[in-house]
């Protein structure tokens, strides 16, 4: 009994030391580091170069998990489940202008992006609840728009999950790429002054 007690106390002491080391609470680098993208692409750089020809439309802040030799879709990201389109904090999209997605007017503002991934198509979701962690408390009632888009195969696998804006003739595609697939969420905007 004494031994158990002693053992418990030493564990306790070790735990205390750990807790003290943690006292500073300075966070380590995330394994899935965050990144952000703007549309117009590279807007902050254009801004300091005085090369802006178009007002700011959108910004995405997301975390970038890595494949790291895992099977991504169907395993790590389960089919048919709501996924935060990134890691850690749920992915945030902000529109600085009103936009249209899937024939629906989306007022400017901050939204959270989720996806329901399937082998051949993804359902992309804009949801009003911002500053959230993951999709653990995802509430369908707060959806603003859902749009289902086809999956395209990539010639080369992307190890880090990537989100980019691509200009197309009809507007802009928000492209999500990871492993050997990509999907594109088209949106348009009109009220540019």
């Amino acid at each position: 009994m004494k031994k158990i007690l002693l053992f418990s106390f030493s564990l306790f002491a070790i735990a205390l030391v750990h807790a003290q080391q943690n006292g500073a609470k300075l966070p380590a680098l995330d394994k899935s580091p965050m990144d952000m993208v703007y549309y117009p692409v590279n807007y902050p750089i254009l801004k300091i170069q005085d090369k802006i020809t178009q007002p700011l439309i959108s910004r995405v802040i997301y975390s970038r998990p890595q494949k790291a030799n895992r099977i991504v879709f169907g395993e790590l990201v389960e089919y048919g489940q709501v996924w935060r389109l990134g890691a850690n904090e749920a992915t945030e999209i902000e529109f600085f202008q009103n936009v249209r997605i899937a024939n629906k007017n989306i007022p400017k503002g901050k939204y959270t992006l989720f996806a329901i991934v399937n082998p051949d198509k993804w359902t992309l979701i804009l949801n009003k609840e911002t500053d959230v962690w993951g999709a653990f408390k995802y509430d369908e009632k707060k959806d603003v728009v859902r749009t289902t888009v086809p999956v395209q195969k990539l010639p080369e696998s992307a190890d880090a999950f990537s989100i980019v804006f691509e200009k197309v003739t009809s507007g802009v595609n928000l492209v999500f790429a990871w492993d050997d697939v990509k999907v594109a969420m088209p949106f348009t905007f009109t009220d540019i002054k």
Partner: protein
Amino acid sequence: MKLFFLLVYSILWISCNRQSKEPSSNIIIGRDTNVFRPEVANPYVSQDISPVDISYYPVDYPVQKMTDPSIPLPVARIIYSRPQRQGRSIFGSLLKFGEPWRLGANEATEIELFQTVRSGKQTLNKGRYILYCIPQADKWTIHFNTNIYSWGLTQHKELNVYAIEVPVQKIVNPLEYFTIVFQKTDAGADVIFAWDEVEARLPLIF
């Protein structure tokens, strides 16, 4: 006796959980070199060598929101990039004393205030600002500026809205990665800026 063991083990359990969520600064340094891999093949955008990170007050707000969906809006959040030391001498060398620094890397560091706060005697209205500092050996001048969504290399002084001088303190364990984190105080919270062997604290009152 049973109760005692239960107590010890629950404290242990909590400590271990804390450990997994908040790695100690020792672990930071050990992991730095292999935390990211440059990816040539990514046809979209390669990983930043100074990755973006986000800090909230309340600390870990999005995590707290999971257990308490009715939690009020956060007080503030900061989005910044995390350059690493890589064996270089930082303050007074890589970052020249007396010259503006974006308090990060790449895009200018952004602070969003979800409510009006005070710092020193100044009131800061809710909204977004960029932060930069002018470091000196013993003190930094931290500026709030309204040139948001900009790359951090140039500062438009005419858009400065607030400046505060804060002392620089030595820290025990040098940090490989530049770190911004909020810490609760009696009056509100400090924004801690820490890198290499120093930290500076920006007091916010709310």
